[in-house]
């Protein structure tokens, strides 16, 4: 939080459109940088730079742009979206942006990881071959799940896809 205070704040939003805000007259801003947006009523929103140039910076606001006006202040944090992670996160309930919402204490980070991840070099992959027994016979017999594989569940609206999804945590 310290660093954020030191950063320049801009009140130069020239346009708001859909989930985007357009900020003018900034110093050079990095592509994909993380943005904090402070509304006059004290609400803080988060965003990310989608397009940056000498003239204008386009920011996608994650929480939507409702309430944003020309007096809204914008701060560029100068880093891609990182998430604090720790083994203590196991057993906790977190919001979409990684904040605890179970009433428990903040997570003390062991590491900060880029949420965009990084591509695995295909040459350093090993073929998945450890069978995972799911206990769901149609999966085990017909569409065996293997460690390191992806298993999409296709569902229609109104179908009970939550049960198999919840069951998957026990695999």
């Amino acid at each position, binding site marked *: 939080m310290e660093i954020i205070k030191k950063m320049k704040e801009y009140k130069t939003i020239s346009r708001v459109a859909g989930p985007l805000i357009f900020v003018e007259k900034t110093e050079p801003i990095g592509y994909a940088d993380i943005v904090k947006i402070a509304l006059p009523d004290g609400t803080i929103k988060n965003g990310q730079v989608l397009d940056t140039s000498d003239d204008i910076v386009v920011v996608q606001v994650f929480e939507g742009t409702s309430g944003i006006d020309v007096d809204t202040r914008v701060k560029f944090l100068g880093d891609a979206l990182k998430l604090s992670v720790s083994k203590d996160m196991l057993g906790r309930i977190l919001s979409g942006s990684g904040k605890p919402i179970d009433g428990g204490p903040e997570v003390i980070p062991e590491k900060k990881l880029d949420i965009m991840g990084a591509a695995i070099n295909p*040459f350093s992959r090993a*073929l998945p071959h450890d069978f995972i027994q799911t206990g769901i016979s149609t999966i085990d017999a017909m569409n065996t799940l293997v460690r390191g594989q992806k298993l999409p569940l296709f569902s229609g609206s109104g179908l009970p896809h939550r049960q198999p999804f919840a069951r998957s945590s026990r695999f």
Partner: protein
Amino acid sequence: MDKGVIYRVAGPVVVAKGIKPRMYDVCRIGKEKLMGEVIQITGDKVIIQVYEDTSGIKPGEPVINTKEPLTVELGPGLLTSIYDGIQRPLPVLIKQMGDFIKRGVDAPGLDQQKKWDFKAVAKKGDDVKGGSILGEVEETPGNIHKIMVPPNQKGKLAEINSGKFTVNDVIGKLDNGFELKLKHNWPVRIERPVSSKLKPEMPLITGQRIIDALFPIAKGGVAAIPGPFGSGKTVMQQSLSKWSDADIIVYVGCGERGNEMTEVLTEFPKLTDPKSGKPLMNRTVLIANTSNMPVAAREASIYTGVTIAEYYRDMGYSVALMADSTSRWAEAMREIGSRLEEMPGEEGYPAYLSTRLAQFYERAGRVIPLGTKNEGSISIIGAVSPAGGDFSEPVTQSTLRVTKVFWALDAKLAQRRHFPSINWLTSYSLYHDALDEWYVKNVASDWRSLVGKMMSILQEEEKLLEIVQLVGSDALPERQQVTLVVARLIREVLLQQNAFHDVDTFCDMKKTHDIMISIMKISKMANNALDNGMRAEQILETKSKDRLSEIKFVKSYDNLLKEIMGKIEKELKQ
């Protein structure tokens, strides 16, 4: 030096000012010197697609124009390699940046240290030009790599030496002072020139019965494999890479899964080429730009692949290039196009989509290369993954306009586990006429007529099945019930082929021919039996005809086939 600054960054697209490049010049972007390529020039603004992740790159950072186009290094060491979309060897990248792809790393395409044993065949004083063979290197056991004069050079050989060289050592000189090396560079977006183009006249034997018999592709031909997800495109591309009788295979994994490249990497060294008896990996070059790797490099990967293919073609080899999947390539173009604020065409693809696809497939062909008389060829087989299996979408349609073979994969067949799931009614090949003579000379004189019979029985089956759906099979005349039996044999024995069975994965032309002959014999015997008073019902109940598919899974099948055919004959004579 031509230096400028970044004006704007939007994903893989960077706009620079202050440089004066030519179209497709390579630029170095930002403090980390990321590699990019000029794709548009408008006034003082230069638009560059960047091959690496641009997060954190800011306006005002430097841009350097290298004044060179994007090139690949061509020379010994390509075979058995696995590259990313811009020919950086993936094993080298692991050494430099660990298991994940990071940015700002340069790695030459060829091993710069390795010494190759070069045997000169050209002599001092020879008149040489682009494509002339200077000598040979055994690149992998059994694969001779011909060292050629680069396409745009010519002169008298002032000096040429045999010996052990790295790709950068000078092996000789032309009288104009040009230094000859084992390698040369070539820009990926420019087609390598040839002496002349030839008409295709021999098939690429794929070892896949339905292809070799019903829908053949010529050496130098182009084929499309469109299919909905899970219908078997990748398995088909891998089977073709394994068993096609091409000399060299270039496999471009374009925007698909990393695990599939790992499969190729672990499997190919263990499998042996039925022609040479050597590991399949020895003739293979892999290019991997998986779904999560940078999108601009995916756009380039197809060009990198086809340029390498052309290089081996120029040595007089037949090359087969697989692209899995060209839809992901088109999506890369779409993503970059949308960042340019270009006017989108159909479904958001850029208006030049079909031109680009046509230009790519146009690089296939059977040719007399420059400087030699040994003909070479490139066959291109592109997978297309239309969303929802809808073949009317732009990528499939633009592809079909230029490809002459259409292997339509069918979700229904795949669900019934009929593999390969090529739909025999909608697929086609326009090479039958061109290849006819070859079959007569090299396989059997009745090849074409057998194939014609197979097709017409399958087409008749389709009509009969419609009737059966309405009135039930009992209502069919007996002769037509027998046709249905024969059609089922064609589907189950000839068309179905298990890519994962050690023997069935590959089927040579003789065996395919034997299967077709046997089915026609059974058809004849069954029809004779009808004439002799046997009921269709009884014919249906005979057991031995259902055993014909056993021969697919046996290597030396002659005796088994005789035994089964003998039993069928007995049953149908009773």
